[in-house]
């Protein structure tokens, strides 16, 4: 089981990877989304906010997210560190996503571009 801090660190690593990729920032200029990241086995909620291509990470839940990403803490930490792809836990049901299919696919694309295959 990962801790809340580990999930925070994984999201910060994700943010750092994102910020290093200028192309990705340009690509996401028009994709303004609020994403809730929620762990099922520990008290842990984070908000990822994409606005004008900039990604910010905040502890706590937003009021009205566009996308909700729910999974166990281990999966979330591994996922945002890029040690696993979102598709694997998604296909076996460990990772649950709530939101538009296009947004879900976009989030996977971003993860792919930050961490590679």
């Amino acid at each position, binding site marked *: 089981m*990962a801790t809340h*801090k*580990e999930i925070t*660190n*994984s999201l910060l*690593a994700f943010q750092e990877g994102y910020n290093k990729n200028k*192309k990705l920032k340009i*690509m996401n200029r028009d994709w303004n989304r*609020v994403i*809730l990241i929620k762990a099922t086995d520990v008290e842990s909620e984070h908000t990822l906010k994409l606005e004008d291509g900039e990604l910010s990470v905040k502890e706590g*839940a937003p009021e*009205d*997210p*566009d*996308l*909700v990403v729910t999974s166990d803490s281990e999966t979330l*930490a*591994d996922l945002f*560190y*890029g*040690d*696993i*792809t*979102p*598709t*694997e836990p*998604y*296909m*076996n*049901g460990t990772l*649950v*996503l*709530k*939101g*538009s*299919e*296009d947004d*879900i*696919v*976009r989030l*996977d*694309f971003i993860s*792919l*571009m930050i961490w590679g*295959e």
Partner: protein
Amino acid sequence: MALKKVLTLRTVVATSAGLTLSSSTFIAAVQVAGFLAGDAAWLAILTGGLLCITAALCFSELNGLIPSAAGIRLYYSRAFNDHLALVVSLLYMAVILGVIGAESYVLSEILHEAIPLIPPMAWILVMFSVVTGMNIIGIKIAGWFQDAITYGMMLSLTVLALMALAKVDFHLTAPLVTGGTANFVNAVAVGVFLFVGFEWVTPLAEEVTHSKLISRGMLLAIGILSVTYAFFTTAMTALVPREVLANSPTPHLIFARTLLGDAGVPIMLALTLAASITTFNAGLISISRFVYASAREHVLPAVFSKVSMRFFTPWVAVISIFILGVVISTIVLITHRYLTLVNMAAAMESIIYVLAGISVILLRKKMPDAKRPYRVRGGYVIPGISAVVFSVLAIAIFITFPRVFICLALGILLSSLYVNHVVPVLKRRHQQKKAAARRRRPVASAEKAGD
């Protein structure tokens, strides 16, 4: 937690029905009528619709239990095992690609009839290029457009059917004469094709507020389609001799021409284009996303997960599907064996419904306490009926069309070989690569040691 954007029941119904309505369905409708002696096509279609409702109820329970765009892949994986889920999913996608091939062939024949100067192959290339271009650039058909096309299409087909029935002063003379049980079973089996794709709406589970909307949407779509198809098929066969319709890949065009003269051609052309564009586009999007997701899961080679930095779309997957689609369409164009693909889709769809029925039963045993927003009433009766009846229908298709059986058996064999021998290699390679570049553990371990 409320999501900002959610879909309405109207769009769920339109999506479910819209994915089902295609040019190939008219061919299947004529085939249904061809099996029967009297005017009993309506009965076979309504029976097919009723049976599909049992499958829809099963999908509703599965979708509520596991609301995921992964759909059958996840349902079957939980109910049976990942191996079977993968074999079936790969084969299903291949069959859907075949349906798109048949669809593009039918559409190209219609366009060729309307504008004879341009050969069907050119139309196939144009259609595939347009849809592939749309998918690469990332242009999507808007929800309102899907709604307008689907409801407009169903209304137009009903109006045309009523006009035709009025024109011939139609009276049901032999509404229950089927020509024997075997004929009726075959008609219902092929009739299932008319509803192929209604369950493709389940990936929207993540975009609705309540999973019950998906259930209601599917049931309403099947109900509306059953009535529309029953009317239209009865009208087609009442107006035009069955032999004429059965020998053509464009029976609906013949019907429109007979009903409205030359003015019927552009009307039916517009309707067919409307019917095809949604199926065609949705089919290609589904398959290319499946290919991309499979590559991300290391089930297919990693090259298929390449994403365009310009358009944010899986361009390798999209172009691969374009090539495969054009190849299949060309083969259909040369061999004229579009009916094999239609029947193959009907059989495959029956197998999918059999597995859905069994999945409901197995998951109730494996996950008895899991939250089910929707539970099929009557215990195991409806899932059981779905599993048994669709097994019979699949067998009926295999007996009547042995070529379909051979093709699907070959497909299962190839898919199994791939899953057994290639997928483990791809996964192993990925694991080795990932283990060397693992980011989290050293950090996590260091922190824990520090604690």
